């Protein structure tokens, strides 16, 4: 097998690992921490949004395959924002609702966490810009 094929396989594996890592961060860890104690509802949410794992892995693979190409500069920025927007989608746009049954009352609770989600989107964009700068350096060197 030529070194080029081995290199592509390595990039594919690294891309899959990268996608799974970002999925665990944005698709599982952050919703778990944000929703805190409503774990039962979170399980339903995570299962419902499991198809996003495929998207995360695809983006991770594309990110790795295009690593030294100039197109990866805006792409890396964009992927971080996409990850953050998927988190926003998982968390219902920042509106978390739950119903508690405390006899003889039914209590409906609605919490608005959009401020926190906006902050995560902005921080992800900043991280994406820094990540892209490392590619700018690589591209200008080669």
């Amino acid at each position: 097998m030529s070194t080029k094929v081995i290199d592509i396989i390595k990039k594919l594996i690294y891309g899959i690992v990268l996608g799974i890592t970002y999925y665990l961060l944005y698709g599982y860890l952050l919703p778990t921490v944000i929703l805190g104690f409503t774990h039962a509802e979170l399980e339903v949410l995570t299962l419902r949004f499991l198809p996003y794992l495929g998207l995360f892995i695809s983006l991770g693979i594309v990110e790795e395959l295009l690593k030294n190409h100039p197109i990866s500069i805006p792409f890396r920025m964009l992927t971080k924002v996409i990850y953050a927007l998927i988190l926003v989608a998982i968390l219902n746009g920042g509106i978390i609702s739950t119903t508690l049954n405390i006899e003889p009352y039914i209590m409906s609770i609605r919490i608005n966490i959009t401020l926190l989600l906006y902050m995560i989107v902005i921080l992800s964009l900043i991280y994406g810009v820094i990540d892209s700068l490392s590619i700018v350096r690589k591209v200008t060197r080669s």
Partner: protein
Amino acid sequence: MLTVVKVGIAVLSALIVMTLLSPLLIFLVDVITNPVSVIQLRVERVKYDVHNQSAKVELSLTYSGSIPLTNVSIEWLGGSIHFDEVRKGVYRKTVTVSIESLAALQELRLLSMSFSVGGLYPVTVSLRKTG
């Protein structure tokens, strides 16, 4: 150098998110450990005005949570009260309500409450009596 900046940004982001999230998590812990008495609304005294078919009601709001609540509004059938900020303690207010509205308030038939946890997270709670 950029790797150090990237790690720094990631750590800083985690710290910012945790700091922003902490008031909500502390509030949720307060609610879960003490669901019934974290916020309590009581009718303390009622002074009836038979002429106008109304009553002067002294309400007390007791809050035992550790995170301050802002813009606290409590509404019930035919009446409402508002507090700019509520910290741990007891707050009293006197309102004039109609006799029908007083009955709804005393039985907590339909009550809705809105407030902001630490001024960051708007929360709406509606309480409905079953049966």
